[in-house]
């Protein structure tokens, strides 16, 4: 689906990525940063899914009677892995955030930097 010569999907993906990046970079709150990271991740996943999409194809799920064309299975596998990894990263990060909060009583970068 094109709009003004641009593929709308890609435009959206880029915008999401930018929003995520903005959150990661500009927000002082660690949780907000992490949310930003997640937004970025989903944006990239969305890109991969979109890129792997074949117009009019079926899902790459093998059931009897499915016939080509179907969406390439490999990008989907990549995304699946990516989601798992993303959750792991998020989990680790959240654990760290909890630790930081326990230790310093804050999860704001601004305040953490002022600590001795």
């Amino acid at each position, binding site marked *: 689906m094109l709009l003004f010569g641009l593929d709308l999907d890609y435009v959206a993906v880029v915008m999401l990525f930018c929003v995520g990046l903005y959150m990661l970079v500009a927000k002082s709150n660690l949780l907000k940063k992490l949310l930003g990271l997640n937004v970025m991740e989903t944006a*990239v996943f969305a890109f991969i899914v979109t890129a792997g999409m074949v117009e009019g194809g079926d899902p790459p799920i093998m059931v009897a009677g499915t016939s080509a064309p179907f969406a*390439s299975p490999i*990008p989907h596998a*990549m995304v699946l892995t990516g989601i798992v990894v993303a959750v792991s990263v998020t989990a680790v990060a959240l654990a760290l955030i909890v630790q930081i909060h326990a230790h310093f009583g804050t999860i704001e970068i601004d305040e953490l930097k002022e600590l001795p």
Partner: protein
Amino acid sequence: MTGPWAEALPWVIALPLVGAALTPAVAVRRPRAAGFWAWGVLLVTAVLAAGLVSELLARGPFSYELGGWPAAYGIELRFDHFSAWVLPLALLFVVIVPFSWRYLDHVMPDERRPPFYALLLLNAGGMIGFCVTGDLFNLFVFTEVVSLSSYALVAVGGRGLAAFAALKYLFIGAVSSLLMLFATAQLFVLTGSLNMAEVSLRLAEVGGGTAVMVAFAAYAVSFMVKAAMFPVHVWLPDAHAIAPSPVSAVLSGMVVKVGIVGMLRVYQIYYGAEVLELGAFNLALVWLGAVSIVMGAFFAIFQDDIKLMLAYSTISNIGYIVLGLGLASPYAVIGASVHVFNHALIKATLFLAAGSIIHQTGFRTLSDLRGVARAMPQTSAAMAIGAVSIVGLPPTAGFVCKWYIALGAFEANQAPFGFALVFGALFIFIYYIRMLNAFYFQKPVHAAVAQASETPWSMRGPVVLLASLCLILGVLGGIPLTFVEPAVLDLLPLWGP
């Protein structure tokens, strides 16, 4: 045709990963057993790696198709000259792990040892996998394994600050992984394959274009972040300085090399495909390398904390390697590749020695550690050797690399970078002189420092061993070259011997 050892290829990855999974189970009754378990696993891994390398030397690169699918579709493990890096890697782990047995006493309670060693094994397995995979997506997966375990390892020892440093590392690392994933996907979309060799071939058919360029750029940035080159190095110093010393050694010595090895791998794809004009990229690498050297040294000068100093010097040394790669002349690339290993060795020496000193005295700044050499002569000597080595003064391992990279600079008619390299190194030595002065030639200010005792043998042994290796590889600098030279010539086939 493959020899018997080729069958060991999947095992060399699987062993540490499985070992990691089993660690909590093994150590359920005696948490301390985790350390011995991890060591045993790594020892076997090292033996396997040695076997693989011998196979490589005997018969050249070989592949292994997981599940028996042909390379283009299935998952291919490939053992080529770059994969030989797994051997020193495993060996370094084998040396570092015994150091951590006693070291961890002060760092963490016993019950946290099993996860620690599990993470360490995970890290090792990830790196080994990273080196032997012939598949771009697996490259990403293993990168993530390494990265995740590294984030956790940074935080594992300490509480607040360590967690903070780890989080910083995590944020940046995750973004870089994301870029890598993006690039991998992009390449797949363009070529329909994830096998590196296949991608390289198909890229040649697809031809150049913005999409290829974008993918390449994403890879490059991603690996630069992993390698902590100058503008994107910010995550490194804190993470490496705060982590427990064995972890620092692993991170600084090996994990950052994931970026380098990855860059070489990806470079190989593009170089083979000849779809991109890599000259500009090389030039960028050279400049970034030179700037990294100088900036790393510059930051290090102002550090009082010895581990921070070492961390910053990693940035400089990565600068060497990148500079050497960017120069793209045989000698330079040889030098850079050897430095990948030598720097790991040297950094491990330094971090372990620094760790020993911190462990025994409880202090970590130069001003507190004055006169420590008298109390801990062997460790300090190792530290001194490491310092001399990292600066690249003869007759140490660091010199060999500096020599080759400088030679490469002149070979590539880039004399100014040769000068930059040499004098950047001297710049670095300025802060190591401070360290040596403090250790050797100043009066102790703390009684704890003056009365510190040498470390137990399980800690001292690895340090002394590594330090001796630094010296031996300085004199017998040719040994790593036997591995590296064919790899380099493999990588850049246009160069004659």
